[in-house]
């Protein structure tokens, strides 16, 4: 054979190879990418189904726990067709908080429950009512929840209590709906008030300026309020000259209630308090006026521990006593049976007070009233009929205007009832059914579903190795879809035919329940197909065997246990900052002293990864062999720990105190501080400070290249400048009241430009894939050139953080100036935590996401929030628009309230991506690790949510449930929802996949 021919052939072969080679490579690449894409879609579906499960569980719990009712703003007017006379011009109303019914009736000393500390002390009410027609004593039945605020609403509106009175504003202060006090005010009655400051909060506009409210929350103080009320009565009631100044005199005494909370009823101070009330009442009666109605009542009872809030008989039973000089109440003496603690004594509902007093004082019955007047107030049957007609008119008007029952058979049945009292009974029952009952089945279903979702998350995210999950994810999604469908069909079938299970209200809830069952089974089947419970338990033990995981578990547990006490929940802001500081100190200790465990931990975790030290030298050169961290890395790590601790301390100085924190907290997040010149100067300082701080973190890996200077140095700086301008304009508006120019248009222009650029333009720009690397070509000698890729080692992280910056810009705009300072500190904390996790090689550990989660909570509190409804910064909703317009107002409030959570949910991927050099790990592996880290953040939030579910249910009778625990549970649920959505759809769905594909295509070998 001719050698030249063979040469030719060889060359042809080589050429063919050289041409085909890349093709086979690219086809392999495209195959890999397409497989990656499908895995990625499956991951999103899996996480989304878990998210759906959690949303369903939250929905079930909220449905069971939150009592809702629509409030109408209508105000009742007198009906000219049914005129009636006012019997009394004036009223003296004394409320004795937590006055239980058996406190005021005679109790046989031989009775099993007789207790001299609280029985037979307050005798005046029964003595006057017994065998006389000028006063009447009744058992007064409250509606749960038996807390003072809810009771006062019920007592004055005649309606049933709920936590969220949908339609009224959330601030919960002044009652908007029609009520007794408002009606009295509208009919020119002058109302004097002394006592519990809840009245001031609820009825402030209607009370006369002479009123004296007292602090009510300090249950340790037994006497201040009572003495205040008594001295007020001395001044205005017992003093004949001043009696004419008021029409209505209201006193609210708290002594009995506070004794109950502090010592429980079985304590001698209870006797003292009761005797004090007894004495006061006797004095009032002895100086009674004609033409004045005297009312004494309790708002609720107390249980054997002295607490209240729930729905036990002892908590519900209270007292009502009506008295007027020379009155002639039509009493049925047989019904007042005081034997056996008055078990069979005549009772009336608390809501019945409203129509009773309205009729006696000659004012219209408040619009939302559901009560029914007492029979005792009418002197003859004709009057009674008149009263019943008036009341039925009011109820029917309310029924037709509110349309709460809708046009159902139930409504027709109701309207056809001829007997007026029966009509009211039936109407009330229907309303109670609709509004005022804890639905325990739903609560339990909610808790159970949340617990299941937590177990599933734990198994998928932490127990099964992430690579195996990557292979199993198809099974998961298939099973979930199939079984959800099957379960939906079967549950719907049973529900439509048999109307079972009974706790489901309609087919929507039925399919929600069926779907959640389907998801749980669908995920469990592939798990138990491969693993046993025993193996999973062993994995759990193994997972918790290293130091940092234990620390993280400790943090999660402590945080979840905060909800076991109202004090811890109140001080959550400080505690979270304390825990974050602890993390910083622990890492500082780690870097400073380098305990023993490093040698082993490094061998275990860092074996597969390239251990790049920051000094650029190899591991062996920069430190002695036995130590896993180089000296430079230790200094750097120590520096980051100190930055974290310092920033945490500084930012936690910004606080908007909760009401309950009282004198121990000085609010710094106040309007005057927010718009002070110093704060604005600080914000001006932020414009260069934030970009240069971020630049510092980028420079560590020399990633401040190409896109980074544009993004950080130009766009971020510009956007910060624009937000500074916006907030300066607002400050100017705040400082100078009569400003000549109208700045509104400028403000809206600026804010809309920022939002448009940061959330839309920059995100589209980010989708184009801005790389932060630079090819640095320099001559080594005259002929050859050497190319270095700058920023190679952090190519993932540097690009991903640009996305975080996009959201950061928007969140900066929606935070008040002090909040902006806090967010600036957050940037440093965030990047420091990520650097620390990288240096300690705990990227896969629980600790990273947990530390970030703590950071989110700490920053939530230090951007001027608390887990209470009044502290929501509603005004942030009006940055983009003047009126409430659907996405924009809500966007503002969400970005303001959950800004730190959004930033953290985005940056949790950075734990994996930061300083992750390309082409070391498979795309799938990186994705699996991102899912694992984001999942850990979700686990953290789910644990908190579950804990808040359990404890808010446990504390449903607690005095503070509607003030502390319930808002905290709402907040925990919302946090979980926000984190779920951001993690699933933005972090994993949108960002990670695009980033990983781009970089693995660019740098694949």
């Amino acid at each position, binding site marked *: 054979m001719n050698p030249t021919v063979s040469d030719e052939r060889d060359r042809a072969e080589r050429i063919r190879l050289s041409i085909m080679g890349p093709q086979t490579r690219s086809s392999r690449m495209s195959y890999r990418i397409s497989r990656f894409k499908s895995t990625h879609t499956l991951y999103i579906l899996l996480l989304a189904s878990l998210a759906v499960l959690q949303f369903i569980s939250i929905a079930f719990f909220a449905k069971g726990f939150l009592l809702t009712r629509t409030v109408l703003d209508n105000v009742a007017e007198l009906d000219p067709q049914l005129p009636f006379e006012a019997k009394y011009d004036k009223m003296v109303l004394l409320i004795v908080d937590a006055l239980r019914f058996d406190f005021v009736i005679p109790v046989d000393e031989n009775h099993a429950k007789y207790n001299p500390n609280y029985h037979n002390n307050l005798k005046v009410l029964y003595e006057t009512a017994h065998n006389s027609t000028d006063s009447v004593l009744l058992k007064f039945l409250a509606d749960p929840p038996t807390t003072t605020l809810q009771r006062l609403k019920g007592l004055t509106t005649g309606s049933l209590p709920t936590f969220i009175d949908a339609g009224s504003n959330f601030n919960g202060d002044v009652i908007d709906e029609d009520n007794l006090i408002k009606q009295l005010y509208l009919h020119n009655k002058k109302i004097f008030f002394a006592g519990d400051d809840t009245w001031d909060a609820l009825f402030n506009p209607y009370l006369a300026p002479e009123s004296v409210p007292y602090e009510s929350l300090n249950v*340790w103080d037994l006497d201040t309020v009572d003495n205040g009320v008594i001295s007020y009565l001395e001044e205005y009631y017992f003093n004949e000259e001043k009696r004419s100044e008021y029409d209505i005199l209201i006193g609210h005494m708290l002594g009995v209630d506070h004794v109950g909370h502090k010592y429980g009823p079985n304590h001698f101070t209870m006797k003292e308090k009761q005797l004090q009330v007894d004495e006061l009442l006797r004095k009032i009666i002895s100086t009674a006026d004609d033409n004045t109605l005297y009312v004494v009542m309790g708002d609720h009872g107390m249980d054997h521990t002295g607490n209240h809030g729930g729905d036990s008989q002892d908590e519900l039973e209270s007292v009502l006593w009506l008295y007027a000089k020379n009155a002639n109440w039509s009493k049925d003496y047989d019904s007042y049976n005081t034997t056996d603690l008055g078990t069979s004594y005549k009772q009336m509902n608390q809501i019945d007070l409203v129509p009773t007093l309205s009729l006696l004082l000659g004012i219209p019955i408040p619009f939302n009233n559901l009560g029914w007047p007492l029979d005792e107030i009418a002197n003859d049957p004709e009057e009674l009929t008149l009263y019943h007609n008036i009341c039925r008119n009011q109820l029917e008007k309310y029924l037709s205007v509110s349309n709460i029952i809708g046009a159902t058979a139930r409504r027709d049945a109701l309207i056809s009832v001829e007997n007026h009292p029966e009509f009211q009974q039936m109407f009330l029952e229907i309303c109670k059914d609709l509004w005022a009952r804890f639905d325990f089945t739903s609560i339990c279903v909610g808790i159970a579903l949340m617990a299941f979702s937590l177990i599933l998350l734990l198994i998928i995210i932490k127990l099964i190795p992430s690579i195996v999950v990557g292979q199993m994810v198809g099974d998961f999604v298939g099973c979930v879809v199939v079984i959800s469908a099957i379960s939906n069909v079967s549950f719907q079938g049973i529900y439509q035919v048999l109307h079972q299970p009974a706790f489901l209200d309609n087919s929507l809830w039925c399919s929600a329940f069926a779907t959640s069952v389907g998801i749980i089974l669908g995920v469990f089947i592939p798990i138990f197909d491969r693993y046993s419970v025993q193996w999973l338990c062993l994995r759990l033990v193994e997972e918790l065997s290293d130091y940092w995981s234990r620390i993280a578990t400790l943090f999660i547990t402590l945080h979840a246990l905060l909800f076991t*006490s*109202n*004090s*811890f929940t*109140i*001080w959550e802001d*400080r*505690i979270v*900052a*304390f825990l974050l*500081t*602890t993390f910083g*100190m622990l890492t500082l200790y780690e870097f400073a*002293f*380098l*305990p*023993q465990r490093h*040698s082993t931990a490094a061998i275990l975790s860092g074996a597969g990864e390239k251990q790049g030290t920051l000094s650029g030298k190899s591991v062996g050169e920069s430190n*002695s062999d*036995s*130590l896993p961290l180089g000296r430079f890395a230790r200094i750097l790590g120590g520096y980051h720990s100190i930055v974290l*601790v*310092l920033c945490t*301390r500084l930012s*936690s100085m910004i606080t908007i105190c909760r009401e309950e924190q009282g004198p121990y907290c000085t609010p710094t997040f106040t309007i005057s501080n927010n718009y002070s010149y110093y704060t604005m100067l600080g914000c001006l300082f932020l414009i260069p400070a934030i970009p240069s701080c971020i630049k510092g973190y980028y420079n560590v890996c020399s990633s401040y290249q190409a896109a980074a200077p544009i993004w950080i140095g130009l766009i971020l700086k510009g956007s910060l400048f624009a937000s500074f301008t916006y907030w300066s304009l607002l400050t100017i508006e705040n400082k100078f009241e009569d400003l000549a120019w109208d700045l509104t248009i400028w403000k809206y222009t600026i804010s809309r430009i920022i939002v448009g650029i940061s959330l839309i333009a920059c995100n589209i720009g980010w989708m184009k894939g801005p790389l932060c690397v630079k090819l640095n070509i320099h001559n080594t000698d005259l002929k050859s050139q050497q190319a270095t890729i700058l920023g190679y080692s952090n190519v993932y992280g540097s690009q991903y953080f640009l996305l975080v910056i996009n959201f950061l810009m928007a969140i900066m705009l929606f935070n008040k100036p002090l909040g902006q300072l806090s967010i600036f500190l957050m940037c440093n904390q965030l990047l420091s935590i990520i650097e620390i996790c990288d240096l300690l090689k705990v990227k896969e550990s629980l600790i990273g996401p947990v530390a970030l989660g703590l950071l989110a909570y700490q920053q939530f509190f230090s951007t001027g929030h608390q887990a209470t409804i009044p502290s929501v910064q509603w005004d942030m909703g009006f940055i983009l628009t003047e009126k409430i317009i659907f996405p924009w107002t809500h966007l503002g409030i969400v970005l303001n309230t959950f800004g730190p959570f959004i930033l953290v949910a985005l940056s949790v991927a950075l734990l994996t991506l930061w300083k992750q050099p390309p082409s070391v790990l498979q795309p799938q592996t990186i994705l699996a690790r991102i899912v694992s880290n984001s999942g850990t953040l979700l686990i953290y939030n789910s644990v908190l949510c579950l804990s808040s579910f359990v404890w808010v249910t446990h504390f449903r009778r607690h005095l503070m449930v509607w003030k502390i625990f319930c808002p905290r549970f709402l907040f925990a649920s919302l946090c979980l929802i926000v984190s779920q959505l951001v993690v699933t759809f933005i972090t994993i769905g949108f960002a990670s996949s695009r980033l990983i594909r781009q970089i693995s295509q660019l740098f694949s070998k």
Partner: protein
Amino acid sequence: MHNRKRKTVKKTVSFSDDQNLTNANLNNHRKGHIDDDTPPVYVRKSWTLIPFHLLALLYWFLKYTDFNLLALLYIMIPTQVIYLIFRFNKNTIYGKKRLRLNWLLVFITLGACLLLSIPCLAIIVLFGAPFVELLKESWLLALHCCFLTYPAVYDVFNCNFKVGYFKKYFISVVIGCWISCFVIPLDWDRDWQAWPVPLIVGAYLGSFIGFSIGGYI
């Protein structure tokens, strides 16, 4: 990290944190010395080390002084010195010997504790103690913490600043303080919840436990 030879002790002593190195060094000399597998510097396991005076002081403080931090400090410092002289120093073994008390160092350490209270104060403030108001109380707390570790500080000076072995005494005080923080937010309204009384109690108990069982760890 480095091996250092001491003239008073004949064998090579390592204060390194790295147990492997230490063991390797000790193993080399094993032939000559049979009981050489003990650390180079250690505190004997002995019941005499239990610092009962701390409990007594704490009881006195809580019961009779109306939480007078300064008075407690004034009494605690001499008792700590006595404890060091008669208990801690006698139970500390350097190499295989007990060293005689270095009187100069006793006083230097007192000064050092005073100085150490400043970084300690910084840490307390970083953990969230109020900075401007109550600074005096926080500083007193820092002083208490530092003087509670006084015997350990003395030993650290005595063995050329190798903290490794004595870290546990400092850590026990820190952990005591850390755990005791949980009573601060509770709304019991007791006078002993005032800053920094719970932390003082925690620090005393922590150091009591630390010094009692320190030899066994």
